[in-house]
């Protein structure tokens, strides 16, 4: 057996262990908590091991070689007519790097959960769910076609629903779960439309057959779609991007993610850092050749323009909200929305590698921040309000230092942190390609640094402002261990992607490995993408100023003179009503409630009241009534003409028919509903026969 065959088998097996763990825990080991978490972690460790073997082996081959001959396995699924629907796995450079960070963060989160979920009554179930979740993400990563990607995408959607509502005793938790499910559903349905459209045009959904075939891409780019002015490629791209907007919580479908904080913190780390929200960006990164086809120089295609606009807007918009939030996890949630928007915007301007790079570094430092905040929450006895915290630096040193590292990485602290390298690359491209995007993103970066510093100061510095913070304690090693590991990645991972032209360091390292490896995923296209030819110090300087300026500003406001207990946020004093608007997230939830939810509920009620009760029942009552009236009239006439025994009966028969008809429609019995289905089937068939 050659190494390649071995890797093929390993790749197929990667998503399997967590799934088996899920099945075994749910079916057999629900009662034994230690056994459950051992199985889940063991399975995840196995997947981790296989993913790492695959990753490190293909690294040895190099990006170009892997692009030429990706690891690919396909089995025919169902032969349907002329087409055979195949399922399979594929590892190209992008898959490899995604496998790398997903398996690390997932394993860290699994181990961490042992500490965080300790003592929960549904402990085993939690591990079952996150195992299924890991299956979803790993499966999505190795999928070689859009349909399979969508299936795993939906598995994750289901798990996210189950996990956000994990503490379903809390009304806020189950509401958040429903909200997340329904909001992402909007994006998913549109995405499914895109997939169906793509399939109808190309007859295949395989990535290799669509994205790597110049002829197919060109054909899609020149064929006009049903919407005038858009090519098929653009229409499909826009539809697929809607899926990302839902899954990666971009404006206007961002509302679910902050509420999703109702779930246990490891879930927040998993959904909002390592896996699900990354999946949204991963999908558009994966489909980038399709989105970018027809691009002329620096002028983007319609999907790219949409991504640039939505991405840069969301990046700034979410950052402003994060500034005014008091819940430690909500700040992180908005910062996640904002950071994902950076990636979307980067793709929108054609900075393919930069987007992928930020995806990876962000997964590391955001998982670190979420797990750190979870550690704070556990250490401070389930306190989540930062206004009640403070002074945790002494009490939780490991958490503090790792959180600091994560925060600095998020702010893009120069040189030292991974976040700097990825964010700087995005900004460098933006400077070159689109100044508007650049300035919006730079402003977002400033805000990011500011709210990160605010969060660190409020949580860890000064004196405790609440009862819980007073008695805080460091968390056990199962929780701090993963923090330390992730902190190492948040610090050092950036050095794999240092631009070669970067002064001093670039020469020292000499090879932008990430760019070459991941860039190889799109083959020739990479060389056609516009980008800065040489190193430009201006965007670098601006990005450094934004990061350091934001941090300093945050320090000046919150760090130099820490808040006392009961003191209001100084920002609230200075900004006044603006702060209120920000704190209430621009009232978008209220707006949606007013514009979408209220009318929907009202419509449903109205339909029930008028249509069901009024119209349908009314018609039936009317029929009955008419029959009775006719009967009575008949009777009146007939009593005088003939003797009226039969007539009386006929009126009764018609009346009874009306009552029966009414029973037919609304009884709650399955046979009656089936009958209605059949009725409409016949009606539609009749329409078809008559008019087509």
């Amino acid at each position, binding site marked *: 057996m050659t190494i390649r065959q071995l890797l093929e088998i390993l790749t197929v097996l990667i998503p399997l262990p967590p799934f088996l763990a899920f099945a075994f825990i749910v079916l057999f080991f629900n009662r034994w908590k230690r056994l459950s978490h051992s199985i889940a972690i063991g399975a995840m460790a196995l997947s981790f091991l296989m993913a790492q073997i695959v990753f490190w082996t293909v690294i040895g081959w190099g990006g170009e070689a892997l692009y030429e001959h990706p690891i690919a396995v396909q089995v025919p699924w169902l*032969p349907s007519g002329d087409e055979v629907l195949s399922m399979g796995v594929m590892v190209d450079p992008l898959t490899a790097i995604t496998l790398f960070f997903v398996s690390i963060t997932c394993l860290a989160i699994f181990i961490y959960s042992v500490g965080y979920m300790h003592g929960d009554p549904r402990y085993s179930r939690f591990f079952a769910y996150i195992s299924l979740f890991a299956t979803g993400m790993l499966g999505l990563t190795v999928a070689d076609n859009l349909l399979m990607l969508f299936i795993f995408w939906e598995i994750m959607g289901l798990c996210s629903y189950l996990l956000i509502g994990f503490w379903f005793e809390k009304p806020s938790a189950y509401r958040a779960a429903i909200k997340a499910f329904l909001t992402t559903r909007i994006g998913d349905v549109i995405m499914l439309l895109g997939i169906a459209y793509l399939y109808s045009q190309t007859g295949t959904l395989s990535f290799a057959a669509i994205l790597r075939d110049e002829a197919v891409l060109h054909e899609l780019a020149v064929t006009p779609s049903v919407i005038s002015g858009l090519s098929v490629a653009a229409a499909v791209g826009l539809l697929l991007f809607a899926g990302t907007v839902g899954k990666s919580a971009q404006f206007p479908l961002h509302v679910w993610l902050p509420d999703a904080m109702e779930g246990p913190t490891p879930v927040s780390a998993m959904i909002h850092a390592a896996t699900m929200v990354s999946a949204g960006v991963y999908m558009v990164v994966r489909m980038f050749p399709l989105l970018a086809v027809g691009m002329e120089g620096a002028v983007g295609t319609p999907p790219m323009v949409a991504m640039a606009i939505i991405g840069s807007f969301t990046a700034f918009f979410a950052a402003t909200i994060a500034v005014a939030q008091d819940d430690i996890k909500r700040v992180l949630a908005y910062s996640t929305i904002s950071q994902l928007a950076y990636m979307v915007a980067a793709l929108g301007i054609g900075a393919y590698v930069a987007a992928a790079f930020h995806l990876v570094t962000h997964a590391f430092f955001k998982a670190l921040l979420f797990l750190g905040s979870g550690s704070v929450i556990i250490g401070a006895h389930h306190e989540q309000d930062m206004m009640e915290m403070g002074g945790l630096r002494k009490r939780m040193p490991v958490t503090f230092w790792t959180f600091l590292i994560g925060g600095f990485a998020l702010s893009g602290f120069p040189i030292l942190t991974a976040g700097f390298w990825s964010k700087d690359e995005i900004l460098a491209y933006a400077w070159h390609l689109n100044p508007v995007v650049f300035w919006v993103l730079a402003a977002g970066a400033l805000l990011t640094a500011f709210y990160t510093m605010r969060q660190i100061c409020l949580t860890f510095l000064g004196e405790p402002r609440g009862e819980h913070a007073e008695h805080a304690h460091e968390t056990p090693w199962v929780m701090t261990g993963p923090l330390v590991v992730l902190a190492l990645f948040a610090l050092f991972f950036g050095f794999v992607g240092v631009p070669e032209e970067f002064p001093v360091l670039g020469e020292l390292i000499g090879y932008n490995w990430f760019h070459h490896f991941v860039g190889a995923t799109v083959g020739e296209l990479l060389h056609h993408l516009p980008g800065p030819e040489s190193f430009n110090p201006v965007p670098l300087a601006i990005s450094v100023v934004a990061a350091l300026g934001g941090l300093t500003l945050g320090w000046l406001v919150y760090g130099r003179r820490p808040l006392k207990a009961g003191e209001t946020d100084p920002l609230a004093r200075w900004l006044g009503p603006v702060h209120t608007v920000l704190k209430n997230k621009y009232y978008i939830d209220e707006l949606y409630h007013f514009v979408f939810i209220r009318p929907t509920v009202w419509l449903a009620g109205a339909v029930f009241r008028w249509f069901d009760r009024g119209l349908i029942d009314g018609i039936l009552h009317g029929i009955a009534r008419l029959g009775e009236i006719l009967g009575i009239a008949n009777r009146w006439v007939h009593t005088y003409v003939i003797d009226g025994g039969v007539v009386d009966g006929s009126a009764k028969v018609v009346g009874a028919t009306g009552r029966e008809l009414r029973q037919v429609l609304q*009884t*709650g*019995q*399955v*046979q009656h509903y*089936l*009958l209605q289905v*059949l009725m409409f089937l016949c009606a539609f068939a009749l329409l078809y026969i008559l008019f087509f």
Partner: protein
Amino acid sequence: MVPLQWYLVLSAALFCVGLYAVLARRNAISILMGIELMLNAVNINLLAFWRYTQPEAAVGQAFAAFVYAVAAAEVAVGLALIVSIYRNRETVDVDEINLLKW
């Protein structure tokens, strides 16, 4: 040779008779029998299409075989449900099985 239409019309007739049983009978077991009849009608269709369009390929037959498997599974689980309901509620009258009404 028998025209294909004859088979199709006959299977449509069997299907509709089965459908009538599903829609109108009160006894849950009768409904299940109606479903079996409908599945049989489907199978006649599949085999007729196989025979009259692509006798050299075995796809139509394969689908018919899967219908058999599904029908067997369906009747096993269906009857188990009916027996279980009967045990708990002393009835197999579907008019009274409406717990999921609201």
